[in-house]
């Protein structure tokens, strides 16, 4: 029997959900939300980024509920986001105020303030570590103590100048007027084309990590005309403030979020001089691949005249959203009896007509 039975859908759904819930626990293992929060930071960061909701504990909860599926976890968190009223917009975040935990430049060896490698998997050897299979709680505590004893007093609270500001001072980069117009809020307004840059950046930053990466990659290897050099990748905590209702110069501090910020340098030729333009990427948490890919696409979309889909604003912005893409693809599982019946009727009629003539 098809799954549009005249009666019975209710019971079928109930049984299906029960089975799903059982599958999550049938191994008899308890997964604490706190364990996910602390041991799976990369996943938590990606889910927050794609959900455009900075809520580490809720993201960890969504991951537990989704049995680790990114797609499902983002879906759950985005839906939760819809229940939250939008109370305030923060003041413009100044990333020069970031408390930096990692900061590298692929363009210059000597950057003012120096490079901070921080924590990265970039230089690990990706070999399976069998020791992790038998790691105990005691092992962890011992390693924590050992690490803390060998570390000098933390310099974590430092801020660093931006690499691009240094280049501006030297006259190598143009200085632009700050655009202080209120940003286009893509969660409150439907995207229009051509999209304002603020809408474009918002869409890119909450795009599916894999999709943003794929399209950035496509541009890099020939299906686009942007191949940048990474000027600066920085990861750290940025402070957030909201405006005081009466005193404009005395905003309220409301906390901080961790972000990855990328400024890519893209050589362009205008007339007979070689210039540089910036591709910009910023996302929640530490997700450098996504932020870099975003900076490539930002630059691509600034040059829509190129004959490649990665430079086509509608193509890029309308297809990178995790919730929208996975939702519409999966709707194909829903019954299509009526539309198919309708098409079938036409196919038969046309065939009949052709046979008669």
């Amino acid at each position, binding site marked *: 029997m098809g799954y549009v039975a005249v009666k019975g859908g209710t019971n079928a759904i109930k049984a299906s959900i029960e089975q799903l819930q059982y599958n999550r626990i049938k191994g008899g293992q308890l997964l604490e939300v706190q364990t996910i929060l602390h041991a799976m930071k990369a996943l938590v960061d990606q889910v927050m980024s794609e959900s455009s909701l900075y809520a580490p504990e809720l993201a960890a909860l969504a991951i537990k509920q989704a049995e680790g599926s990114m797609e499902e976890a983002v879906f759950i968190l985005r839906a939760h986001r819809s229940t939250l009223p939008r109370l305030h917009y923060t003041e413009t975040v100044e990333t020069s105020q970031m408390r930096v935990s990692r900061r590298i430049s692929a363009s210059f060896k000597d950057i003012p303030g120096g490079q901070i490698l921080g924590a990265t998997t970039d230089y690990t050897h990706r070999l399976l570590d069998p020791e992790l299979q038998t790691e105990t709680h005691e092992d962890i505590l011992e390693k924590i103590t050992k690490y803390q004893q060998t570390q000098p007093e933390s310099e974590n609270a430092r801020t660093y100048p931006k690499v691009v500001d240094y280049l501006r001072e030297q006259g190598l980069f143009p200085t632009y007027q700050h655009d202080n117009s209120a940003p286009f809020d893509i969660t409150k307004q*439907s995207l229009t084309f051509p999209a304002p840059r603020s809408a474009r950046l918002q869409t890119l930053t909450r795009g599916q990590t894999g999709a943003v990466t794929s399209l950035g990659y496509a541009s890099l290897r020939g299906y686009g005309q942007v191949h940048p050099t990474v000027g600066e990748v920085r990861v750290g905590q940025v402070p957030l403030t909201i405006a005081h209702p009466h005193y404009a110069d005395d905003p309220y501090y409301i906390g901080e979020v961790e972000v990855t910020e990328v400024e890519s340098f893209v050589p362009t030729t205008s007339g007979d001089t070689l210039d540089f333009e910036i591709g910009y990427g910023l996302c929640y948490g530490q997700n450098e691949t996504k932020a870099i890919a975003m900076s490539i696409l930002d630059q691509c979309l600034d040059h829509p005249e190129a004959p490649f889909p990665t430079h086509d604003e509608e193509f890029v912005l309308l297809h990178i959203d995790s919730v929208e893409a996975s939702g519409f693809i999966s709707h194909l599982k829903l019954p299509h009896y009526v*539309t198919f019946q309708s098409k079938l009727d036409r196919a038969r009629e046309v065939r009949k*007509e052709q046979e008669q003539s």
Partner: protein
Amino acid sequence: MNTEHHFAFFDEGSKKEIRRALLKAVAIPGFQVPFSSREMPIARGWGTGGLQITLSLIGKTDSLKVIDQGSDESVNAVSIKRLVQQTTGVEVTDATAEATLIQSRHRIPEVPLTADQLLVLQVPTPEPLRDVEASEAKTRVLHSEEDYSGAWLQLFEQVMKYGRTATGADHPVFVHNRYVMAPSPIPRFDNAKLHQSEALILFGAGREKKIYAVPPYTDVRSLAFEDYPFTTESFDGKCCKLCGADDVFLDEIYDEVTGVTDYQCNDTSYCIEQLNAQTSQKGEVEHA
């Protein structure tokens, strides 16, 4: 973090925003109003546009009916009903005449709707010109300039190729002599029910972030040529094997064992009502 859900899921600000888009849609029949489509706890493409309209309009005294492919018991209809019920506590009903709010995928009920009812249709692809123009920016210009040559050309090409128009469901309509509109994938059979409807009909496309409407007593004509008139799916000589109805949209049901093809009402609640009426007339219960 055990908190109760807000009534009808959304915060009040979101509901107000959606209702504002709805008012504009009603004021400009057939025009696609962009709205700030929210992410929902059901998947994009599974009826989130309809659901957002339903949740922004539903009140505590409403009676809700949800249909998917003509059936109240189809899995997605059940799922949507459960969500609305969980967050509002409203009554649900299968009986079309008793419902004040009806959300539907792919069908307009067989029982004629009244002025006291709202019909919300879920729309996967709201842009009737999408097949002829991939760009959203360009289709908006075509609508504003009332340039529908692409839509006509498409039908003309079908006539040239197949000797007739070959659209399936979602045959485009002309609303209030101004906008060409996708009626959502209702079968051609249901297009006529849009014309001069007593009930307000609202269309929600969640993924595409559009809301549009056919207000009551509005002219809605299916696109066709004088010499190649619009035709609906044909069920000539066929009737429902359960209730005998021959003037409704039928499902084709093939029996693998006997090799026989039967027909049944696609609108299951209509079929059950017909059967109940027949049984009470006879004053006895027949077992099928």
